């Protein structure tokens, strides 16, 4: 099996804080790769580096053997990497289905002129995008709220909406930043089913999560960050037994 993502020597400092400090790892295609660690360990920063929102001080990120370092976020997205946010980044000024249709942006290419004159090619593309968006909503079990304004949805649904929007771009790799935070038990079970279904559909998942039950249950591999440094990496069972992890992280809880 080939590696979809190869990260080596990634570093990012904010002033004196080394948020990510020399992290290297590889992610196999169609697996669930989880990143765990205490608060402030640098998990979100890692995601920001991978998606181009922050630029690393040094290191390399290869995706399908393409270098991602230095690309603006929209170019990273165009390569087929999509994500959700720990602090929701919903388009609250739009409806649910429109939010997801924005996710399809990279799949369309109708020009501004074709939009102004509503040319047949543009209308065809619009229908296709709408269809794909509705499919993504259905995949996440949100079909019935498609026409609601996004700002009328409860928190749990908004978290799912972010996932639907990320899926709509038909990504190869999805980064989920604490998708279970704030969800109740039933919602968490649904989420874990959803993530497994993603992998069955050929998507690779990078997961940041504090819910250890969820992480240990669904991950193929787990990476533990501590103060920006890689503390351990391995299968869930190996991680759970690792004395360093138990001492530095699990022991604290």
């Amino acid at each position, binding site marked *: 099996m080939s590696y979809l993502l190869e990260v080596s020597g990634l570093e990012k400092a904010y002033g004196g804080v080394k948020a990510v400090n020399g992290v290297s790892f590889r992610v196999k295609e169609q697996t669930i790769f989880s990143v765990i660690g205490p608060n402030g360990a640098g998990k979100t920063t890692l995601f920001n580096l991978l998606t181009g929102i922050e630029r690393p001080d040094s290191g390399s990120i290869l995706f399908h053997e393409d270098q991602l370092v230095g690309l603006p*976020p929209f170019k990273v*997205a165009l390569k087929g990497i999509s994500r959700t946010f720990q602090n929701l980044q919903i388009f609250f000024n739009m409806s649910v289905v429109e939010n997801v249709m*924005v996710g399809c942006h990279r799949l369309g290419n109708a020009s501004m002129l074709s939009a102004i004159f509503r040319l047949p090619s543009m209308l065809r593309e619009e229908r296709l995008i709408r269809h794909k968006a509705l499919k993504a909503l259905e995949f996440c079990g949100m079909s019935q709220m498609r026409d609601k304004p996004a700002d009328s949805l409860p928190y749990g649904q908004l978290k799912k909406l972010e996932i639907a929007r990320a899926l709509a771009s038909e990504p190869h790799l999805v980064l989920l930043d604490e998708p279970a935070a704030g969800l109740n038990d039933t919602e968490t079970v649904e989420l874990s089913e959803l993530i497994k279904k993603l992998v069955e559909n050929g998507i690779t998942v990078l997961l940041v999560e504090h819910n250890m039950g969820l992480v240990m249950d669904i991950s193929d591999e787990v990476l533990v960050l501590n103060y920006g440094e890689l503390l351990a990496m391995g299968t869930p069972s190996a991680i759970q037994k690792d004395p360093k992890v138990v001492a530095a992280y699990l022991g604290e809880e």
Partner: protein
Amino acid sequence: MRLLGLGIFAAVIAILPLLFPENYYVTVVGVTMFFNVILAVGLNLFMGYAGQISLGHAAFFGLGAYSSAILTTKFGFNPWLAMGAGVALVWIVSYLVAKPILRLKGHYLAMATLGFGIIIHIFLVQYDTLTGGPDGLSSIPELSIFGWPINSDLRWYAVSATVMLLSILFSLNIVASRHGRALQAVHGSEVAAETMGIDTSRVKVHIFVISAVMAAVTGSLFVHEQAFISPDSCSFFFSIELVTMVVLGGMASTFGAVFGAAILTYLPEFLVVFQDFKVLIFGGILMFIMIFLPEGLFVGLCRLFTHFKQEQKECLTS
């Protein structure tokens, strides 16, 4: 269904001059309103939908107007050619300005656009060999379409109404497309828009240029209709007036912008006191709307209406 509102609006506009062909408020003020609508609809794409701010929009109106005025009176250009040149100029200027300015956000963007508007205004006042200075330029030739001169109020009404309806149609079409969604996404969350593959800085530049070009075309038409232009027509205050139209109607609603432009065109006509305290009253309206009706009058009323309808439905079903 999507264009129902536009259809009704077009019908009303077509019928009014048939009923009142000689009425000053229809055929004269109407033309001014149509011009304001085009400007407001264009600015609304940039402000309402993309969530940016421009306090210098009148500058593009002015550049379009003065290009036509100068090229036709001083260089003997055909009016259409002059309009084309004005549009090209504004296209280039707005693009060059947009690149650095649109990296700014909020107050900084407001200040930068304000500064740009003031610079253009100063230029128009100072460069009097070309622009006629504070007195402006007059005897601007009339516009004609294939030998059909636009030389009466009614003809101007027809022409400006057509251009306005087209601009509303284009705005509605842009909004209902991936480009419109990109605009709203930039407004909603720039970082999320980027991670969905949207080149947010390009989107902002594009829509800025489009609304600037709409203003330039309006400026050019205005100058031929009035046969006169002075820097007063494109001052800082006019920029504020345009912003007030967009905000009053309701941001991110094309018909909100139409509504705002209509009200702010007719209000001063009916309230003579308005003339002396125009600046004060516009500022007051802007503040009032921002504080009490942040969604704007039009959008607020629409929401109230659908709310009532829903309640009625609920009463009937329960």
